[in-house]
């Protein structure tokens, strides 16, 4: 069967195609501040997310300083420490990674990759960003209120989140919950846009199965987020009511510090169920866009189609569906009915299968490829390595029995940082090196990029691999200081010191990356419109950076999938998605 020759009559462009209405701003403010252009909104999202992410990075330094050199810094007391831990976690998971992948990459790439002029509801899209920014500001405000931000851990478990003895249990926690509620409202606005744009605004010929995996990943993550965030939303509201009005949704009768509390009959486990019903899909909300993006990075830079595209799509769908029935694996030792353990251990290990398939297919994409070791490719390889490690330790924690000795220890911290912090962040970096030329028209500096990659990749492995062993020794997480115990050898402190030094170095190197972003914006090598010789639509725009409306006078028509690399018989080793069959030289050659 011929795979490039098609019946071209199928592509006769119909006369009238309704297009997304674009709002054309007349002022600078309208163009770059109150902008309705998804690309500008994407940059706004990304810059806000990275800005607040820097705060979280500094917080992680502070807590590492305490753990590596206990009691050497008078400005870190046990309350501060818990506040650092909490805010670091919450910012990184929600306000950085979720916002950056969906609000940043989603906004920039979805319309360009599906061949749309913009998101379908540009105004709602703009409001989405401003609500997100408001949520971030509320979060930042909590650093300045009496008692400081909440120190209840990013899981915000009641009763401690709203009881005495936890830092920020009055104002800090309220601001946190309200900020989360606003984040969710803002996200829902953006999320509706992403879903409808992918389903409704694809250009002609762009079937679902021709979408690049980046779009699939972001799309599925958005669906998960839309369905999972309501759980966090209701639990945030219910906890706020428990705190302010004295309801007892989550608060049982307790005696705190010798004082009888005013609650009775609430159930703290209900919060945990609601939280993890959101919290586990949240892992995939961060991971699926990374999965999608890394697939495209590998394919472009190995000059080879992604291996097993259909399996990759099915795996994304399977992971998305399964992610809603595994949540209680976070609760094996929470005191819930232990018989649930059988069900959740089984579903959790089942989810390992589609995830493993994705890993195999990434590696098999490299197999028999023609690998350009560009900076994005290096980050993609770094991702695979890190993700394999983090994914495999997930098999320890997902299996109820194995998880018991390890839960609530540093092993858990090491696992989730490997799998949903470092791995996705490596993809974020790879993606920025990959798409920066499209966003700015200039290449990022290669030398600085390689330096950034090597320190970040090797350094973060050096941080988290030994950390697993701290957990196995029994070092609990969220401990301000471990002090003396009878089971942790004194030599273990060396590990903590090592981790702190590595964390400081890796953190500092991110400044090199920021410097590169700014320096290259002015001095980078001009990139041209398609520096990587990629096939997807965003590289085929008439202007680089693309103008408002993306594709000039007419929308592109799509004739092929996103992965026509090294097609036998074609002259170039890539055929863009919008190249009609008749323009492919030697197109009549056949695969078989």
């Amino acid at each position, binding site marked *: 069967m011929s795979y490039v020759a098609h019946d071209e009559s*199928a592509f006769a462009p119909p006369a009238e195609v309704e297009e997304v209405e674009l709002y054309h701003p007349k002022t600078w403010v309208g163009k770059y501040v109150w902008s309705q252009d998804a690309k500008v909104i994407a940059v706004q999202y990304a810059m806000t997310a990275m800005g607040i992410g820097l705060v979280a990075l500094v917080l992680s330094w502070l807590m590492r300083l305490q753990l590596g050199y206990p009691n050497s810094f008078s400005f870190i007391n046990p309350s501060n420490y818990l506040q650092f831990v909490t805010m670091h976690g919450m910012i990184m998971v929600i306000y950085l990674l979720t916002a950056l992948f969906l609000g940043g990459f989603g906004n920039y790439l979805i319309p360009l990759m599906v061949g*749309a002029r913009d998101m379908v*509801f540009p105004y709602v899209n703009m409001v989405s960003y401003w609500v997100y920014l408001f949520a971030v500001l509320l979060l930042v405000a909590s650093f300045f209120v009496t008692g400081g931000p909440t120190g209840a851990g990013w899981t915000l478990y009641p009763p401690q989140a709203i009881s005495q003895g936890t830092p920020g249990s009055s104002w800090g926690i309220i601001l946190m919950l309200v900020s989360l509620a606003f984040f969710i409202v803002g996200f829902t606005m953006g999320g509706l846009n992403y879903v409808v744009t992918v389903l409704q605004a694809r250009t*002609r010929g762009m079937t679902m*199965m021709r979408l690049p995996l980046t779009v699939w990943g972001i799309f599925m993550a958005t669906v998960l987020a839309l*369905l999972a965030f309501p*759980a966090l939303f209701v639990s945030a509201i219910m906890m706020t009511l428990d705190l302010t*009005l004295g309801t*007892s949704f989550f608060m049982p009768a307790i005696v705190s510090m010798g004082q009888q509390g005013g609650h009775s009959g609430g159930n703290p486990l209900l919060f945990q169920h609601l939280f993890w019903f959101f919290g586990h899909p949240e892992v995939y909300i961060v991971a699926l866009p990374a999965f999608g993006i890394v697939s495209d990075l590998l394919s472009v830079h190995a000059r080879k189609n992604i291996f097993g595209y259909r399996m990759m799509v099915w795996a994304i769908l399977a992971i998305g569906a399964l992610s809603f029935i595994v949540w209680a694996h976070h609760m094996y030792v929470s005191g819930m009915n232990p018989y649930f353990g059988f069900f959740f251990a089984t579903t959790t290990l089942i989810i390992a299968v589609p995830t493993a398939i994705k890993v195999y297919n990434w590696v098999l994409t490299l197999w028999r490829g023609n690998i350009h070791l560009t900076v994005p490719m290096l980050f993609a390889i770094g991702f695979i390595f890190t993700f394999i490690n983090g994914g495999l330790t997930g098999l320890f924690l997902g299996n109820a029995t194995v998880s018991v000795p390890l839960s609530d220890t540093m092993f858990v911290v090491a696992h989730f940082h490997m799998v949903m912090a470092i791995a996705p962040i490596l993809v974020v970096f790879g993606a920025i090196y990959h798409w920066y030329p499209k966003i700015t028209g200039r290449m990022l500096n290669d030398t600085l990029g390689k330096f950034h990659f090597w320190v970040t990749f090797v350094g973060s492995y050096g941080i988290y691999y030994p950390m697993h062993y701290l957990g196995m020794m029994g070092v609990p997480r969220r401990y301000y200081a471990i002090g003396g115990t009878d089971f942790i050898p004194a030599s273990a402190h060396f590990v903590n010191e090592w981790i702190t030094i590595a964390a400081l170095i890796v953190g500092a190197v991110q400044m090199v990356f920021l410097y590169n972003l700014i320096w290259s914006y002015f001095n980078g090598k001009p990139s041209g419109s398609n520096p990587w010789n990629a096939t997807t639509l965003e590289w085929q725009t008439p202007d680089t950076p693309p103008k408002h409306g993306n594709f000039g006078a007419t929308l592109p028509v799509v004739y092929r999938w996103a992965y026509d690399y090294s097609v036998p018989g074609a002259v170039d080793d890539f055929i863009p998605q919008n190249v009609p069959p008749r323009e492919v030289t030697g197109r009549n050659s056949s695969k078989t």
Partner: protein
Amino acid sequence: MSIFHDLTAKPWATAPGTVENLYDRATARKLALKVFLAVVTVLFMLLIIAYGRRMAYEDWRPSPQLGLLWANTLALILGSVALQWAQFSVRRGHMDGMRVALLAGGAFTVVFLVGQILAWRQLSTMGYFDVTNPAIAFFYLITGLHGLHLLGGLVAWGRTFSKVWGDFDVAIIRHSVELCTLYWHYLLGVWLVLFGLLFSGNNLDILLKLCGIR
């Protein structure tokens, strides 16, 4: 084409499908509303599950039955019927009928919301009112969230209603009325489930017992 067929297509080999997925503003809005309703479904479903879980505790005190809720339910049903009538009229081109029906729909909804607030006040003045009673707290939370969704709907209704005087594009108004009607029917459905399961007796308990869960 079925979803299954779509998802098993071999994109590198098969001839491309016909021209498809042309962007259409009305379809896009309707789809967005449906996706949003899916989100709202999850929200209320979780609340009902939380309610059911909490009910399993032995200290559960059922919330008092308010007769007023039956009247409110009737008002909301009438609101939904009125909007259905508006949709029917606008499709037939009966603009006056549409205006009257739209107005009636909004009015019945306001009646419902005022009735809900009255129910809140009635409850709070009752002798055994106690905010730590989870049934009462759930009642306020759930009716509050439902009311907020209706208020949001009233904003969209207001935008539509303000446009139906003088010259207007019938296609746009028809589309807006259809969206409002869908939203109202949906929120009525949510209310009927909430009212039927939680607030008109201990029906959730009975249901769970019937299913052998409790």
